[in-house]
């Protein structure tokens, strides 16, 4: 299955009740798939008149206690930021998929990882975070989608899945099943009609003195818990490594090829691959930096995640960067060359 269709089917398996979306390349297979499949399941598909409308529809559906999602690509996700901020403020669960393309502006429709900052820093206005997944295969995309709906319901917040033009379009075999399930809190806050109960209020407006600060502190406490409990990352041959490559998403697939070849050449190199981009695997990277190793961060951007890697390394060892912005895709050879260059430095501790 292609990534876009697989993520759509994963949402159906996860119990997504409603999909709202608007056309934008390279994720058009998602709404097309949902247009066929959701009515078959007796669920909701609506094509909106804009991204602003799509995210607002998600807000409305989510407030009723139903599982709702939308998908778009970079410029469309920019338009959704107001709504994502409102979802975060109103503590509403939602899943937002960004099949990233090159930017800024209209950019192009080539694969990119340039929306890392936007996704992991909240993106819209206000002090908030979204949980962000950066899967690197169609199977992982499926698994992250299913988990995303659970996490959104557990922590009452929007969860983003960052794919890119390659992951959305490429075809891989997938197992479509819900592998884990969590005990989730009852949605007693949902707007389901207040007959025979006190009314529920879903809002992001807190005007009373100190109320918004208290609300923010509550959100921050939740974010701290997520940073403790929900980090996902993969490590490979880090123990004896002199060089550790950090990459996520489709860039990590290319890194894997380069690391395998470098190991064959006798270079001691491993990788750390964040699966959740927020919460970021800060501790794992920090621990790996206890011994002298050079970190190499590879991204399809001008350098965004590298800032988180540097924060995690906390000055203990050097962090190098190799990035390709604007829809550029690094090759295995390119990364291998970079690794070879770094071996010269790796032998001389700073």
């Amino acid at each position: 299955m292609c990534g876009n269709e697989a993520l759509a089917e994963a949402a159906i398996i996860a119990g997504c009740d409603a999909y709202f979306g608007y056309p934008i390349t390279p994720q058009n297979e998602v709404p097309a798939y949902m247009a066929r499949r959701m009515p078959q399941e007796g669920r909701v598909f609506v094509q909106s008149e804009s991204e602003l409308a799509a995210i607002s529809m998600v807000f409305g559906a989510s407030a009723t206690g139903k599982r709702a999602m939308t998908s778009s690509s970079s410029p469309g996700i920019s338009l959704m930021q107001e709504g994502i901020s409102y979802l975060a403020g109103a503590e509403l669960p939602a899943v937002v998929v960004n099949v990233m393309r090159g930017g800024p502006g209209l950019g192009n429709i080539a694969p990119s990882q340039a929306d890392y900052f936007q996704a992991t820093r909240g993106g819209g206005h206000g002090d908030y975070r979204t949980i962000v997944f950066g899967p690197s295969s169609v199977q992982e995309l499926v698994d992250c989608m299913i988990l995303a709906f659970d996490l959104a319901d557990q922590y009452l917040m929007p969860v983003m899945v960052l794919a890119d033009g390659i992951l959305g379009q490429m075809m891989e075999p997938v197992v479509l099943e819900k592998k884990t399930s969590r005990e989730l809190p009852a949605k007693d806050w949902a707007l389901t009609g207040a007959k025979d109960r006190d009314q529920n209020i879903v809002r992001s407006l807190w005007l009373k003195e100190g109320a918004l600060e208290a609300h923010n502190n509550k959100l921050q406490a939740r974010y701290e818990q997520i940073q403790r409990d929900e980090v996902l990352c993969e490590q490979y041959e880090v123990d004896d490594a002199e060089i550790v490559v950090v990459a996520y998403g489709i860039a990590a697939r290319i890194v894997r090829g380069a690391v395998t070849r470098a190991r064959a050449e006798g270079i001691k190199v491993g990788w750390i691959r964040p699966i959740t981009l927020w919460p970021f695997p800060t501790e794992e990277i920090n621990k790996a930096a206890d011994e002298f190793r050079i970190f190499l961060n590879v991204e399809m951007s001008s350098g965004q995640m590298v800032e988180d890697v540097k924060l995690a390394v906390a000055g203990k060892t050097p962090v190098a960067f190799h990035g390709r912005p604007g829809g550029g895709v690094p090759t295995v050879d390119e990364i291998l060359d970079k690794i070879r260059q770094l071996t010269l430095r790796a032998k001389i501790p700073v």
Partner: protein
Amino acid sequence: MPKLQEMAKKEAAFSSGHRLCAGCPVPIFTKMLTRVTDYDIVVGSATGCLEVASSIFPYSAWKVPWIHTAFENAAAMMSGVETLHKVHRRKNKTDKKIKCVAIGGDGGTYDIGIQSLSAAMERGHDLLYICYDNGAYMNTGIQRSGATPLGAATTTTPVGTVVAGKQQQRKDLTRIMIAHHIPYVAQASIHNPVDLSNKIKKGIEIDGPAFLNILSPCIPGWRIAPDMAVELAGLGAETCFWPLYEVEDQNFKVNYEPKKKLPVTDWLFTQGRFRHLRDAKWSHLVQDFQTRVDQQWDWLLGRQAATK
């Protein structure tokens, strides 16, 4: 009004080498933009087929100043251009009068761009907004829009056993624009170059906001052969699905009245996107389609009679 032979001698605003599909009729009107008027023009595009196909880096098909920013904002962007030009004239930085033209497809005009279009018209900018209506988001691979006709199959309104394509009637954007009480609103089609060029000329040269809606058949989206666009556009007028008319200061004029109004099935059944409607199972949809077209045509004739 300019003769076609004379027009053809002038340089077109739009050159060949663009990457619109074979048989796409959009260049028919973009080539007219400079040929119908002596004014210099600035063109602004909303994201869409025309924008993408005419500006693939590092090439441009435009021989006039051309600007694009996003999908939802062509009218707003051109409001900025027009206002700036007005200020330049007021400050005597130029004595030249330049005319502004914004162009969007139906997705960028009927749906995501209607807010900025409506506001630009209401503020009264000296701006012609041209919508080329091909009845869906064709650039992103045929998704339904507010302009998609009832029953049309698109990738987001698929045909199954329970539903047959789009379940809603299209919105009548031209009438919405008439309700803005702007100096000039017209509906045209690419099959009638004389009528089309007259309307583009009027829209550009009239002082104040103008809106022109052009029926523009789409080869892949309508599932028709590359040589069928002009024929299909003509049938749009002959069936009164797409009446050619103009409204100047609320005075209605129907520019073409077919001698014998053809049934909408003549238009529907020549297109692959309506193929399923031939099944008797969906005859009520065809009937609803015909009813809407009849109502729209009667309304239009009524407005014209009231004008006289």
